[in-house]
């Protein structure tokens, strides 16, 4: 019941978001037909083109046709590249998705253990050092880490490529090698956020009465942390992971540009440069849908993780 409500709310959010995107990219820039023909165009030519492009129809109808088209997978044709947007997206997604996964892996694999380590050393040197590093990690822009990594590993040590992507056709290893630096740049700040959240969640829970109760049953502090604090710390950690997705996405748009990776983020920036607004509209809707979907998934996961939530309205 509650899950269904959540799903409905997410769908509504996507529909409303499409209104905003449609207004921003179809109404704000002015009449695309006038832009195409230039200022000297004759009124009847302009009217003909507008009819041909469907611009003479009322706005709500145009929006509805656009949205239902998207829902059916008809993303249109990119006028910069002259290929269907769907093909373009598919070709770029095979770079962006592995990059995001790799970054997530680094963030979780580094951040959660670091947070746990700091929590067990609460207020001791290990804790303070870990948190100092995390604070710095959280303060550094991902794309600057990217530039520094290029400086060190590509220009200085010449271990890894400075940018570009050979394509998966060239084999898995070169592909991964091209993604490893961007993924580190993207993953490090996220790892710092996760480390802080994990530490705070664990420390707060270790203070709660039920952890003391568990110790009074015969658990040592470390066992109580593993058996009681960690399961109860998962909901806040998962929540933050979901919220961070939108930062991961924004970071990816920039980092792909730093490393000249042919991913979705770079496509977004390229379509702005080429004033390819229909393609941009599709891409923005795709990314916004991804944000909403991830947050929906987190909500549904939380319902499973926390028994108290299942009964609330």
């Amino acid at each position, binding site marked *: 019941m509650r899950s269904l409500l959540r799903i409905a*709310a997410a769908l*509504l*959010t*996507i529909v*409303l*978001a499409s209104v*905003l*995107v449609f207004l*921003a*990219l179809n109404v*704000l*820039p002015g009449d695309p037909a006038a832009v195409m023909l230039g200022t000297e165009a004759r009124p009847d030519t302009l009217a003909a083109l507008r009819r041909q492009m469907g611009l003479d129809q009322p706005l709500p109808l145009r929006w509805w046709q656009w949205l239902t088209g998207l829902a059916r997978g008809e993303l249109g044709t990119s006028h910069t590249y002259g290929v269907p947007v769907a093909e373009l997206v598919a070709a770029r997604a095979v770079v962006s998705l592995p990059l995001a996964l790799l970054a997530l892996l680094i963030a979780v694999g580094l951040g959660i253990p670091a947070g746990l380590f700091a929590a067990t050393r609460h*207020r001791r040197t290990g804790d303070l050092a870990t948190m100092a590093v995390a*604070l*710095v990690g*959280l*303060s*550094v*822009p991902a*794309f*600057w880490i990217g*530039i*520094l990594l*290029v*400086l060190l590993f590509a*220009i200085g040590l010449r271990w890894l490529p400075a940018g570009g992507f050979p394509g998966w056709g060239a084999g898995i290893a070169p592909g991964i090698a091209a993604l490893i630096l961007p993924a580190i740049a993207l993953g490090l700040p996220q790892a710092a956020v996760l480390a802080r959240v994990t530490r705070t969640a664990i420390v707060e829970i270790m203070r709660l009465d039920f952890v003391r109760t568990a110790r009074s049953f015969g658990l040592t502090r470390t066992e109580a942390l593993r058996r009681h604090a960690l399961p109860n710390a998962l909901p806040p950690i998962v929540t933050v992971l979901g919220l961070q997705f*939108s*930062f991961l*996405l*924004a*970071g990816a*748009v*920039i980092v792909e*540009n*730093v490393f000249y990776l042919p991913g979705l983020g770079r496509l*977004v*920036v390229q*379509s*702005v440069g080429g*004033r390819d*607004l229909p393609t*941009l509209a599709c891409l*923005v809707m795709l*990314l*916004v849908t991804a*944000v*909403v979907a991830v*947050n929906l998934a987190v909500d549904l996961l939380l319902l499973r993780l926390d028994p108290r939530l299942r009964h609330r309205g």
Partner: protein
Amino acid sequence: MAEHPDRNWSLWLGVAITLAIVLPAALSLAWTPYPPAAIDIKARLQGWSPAHPLGTDPFGRDVLSLLMAGARNSIGIALGAVALSVGIGVPLGALAAARGGWLDDLLMRGSDLLFAFPAVLTAIMLAAALGPSMGVAILAIGLFNLPVFARVTRSAAVRIWPRAFVQAARLSGKSRTRITLEHILPNILDQLLVQVTLQLALAILTEAGLGYLGLSVPPPAPTLGRMLADAQSFLAVSPRLAILPGLAIALAVLGLNLLGDGLRDRLDPRLGRQP
């Protein structure tokens, strides 16, 4: 019985680092060593020297002057964005907490909607539609932060409303607006202040990203992000150009984060509430 009296170093270190960036940036409003946009091709790509303490860029512009003016633009945009999100988000959150019911639901759904648009994406959309400008950058970052303030305000206010002193105020016949102004906001100010510093830090990070993509203030006005983008072509020749602006961004953000953490520790409700 303060639990960690040694924690205030975070606050003061934060103040010191923030001032170290903010003061030169503020100074650039009145004075910079050279006009930031002054091109001098003969003096291009110089290293450290008494004339140019931080050297020059490929156009012979003075890097120190560029950094000062760039930091001023970044901080200005971040301040504008946070002012926008506080100015709209806090009243909306307070209203949602005071009224509850369908209004609460509506406002929170609305903030969910805005939150689905990462600032970079909004900025890209608006810049594509209207062309990049300072206003677009402020609007994009401010819109993304707005839900944060609406939510923080609401959740903090919702915890104050049921308290007995608020009920006493209601018994004296005061309106909800008046109670919000007199009791609720003063009691959540601490939490809002912490959030303001942390969101300022995030706004500076985001602005740097927009600047890097060329979506913040258009040239010739310098931004730290664009300085980094420009420096990428000269990475092998002059790594200094890529390190300095990044360092300035990182220090500003680190200073604000330290400040926010220090404030939070100091205002931790667990430390001060019970005698």
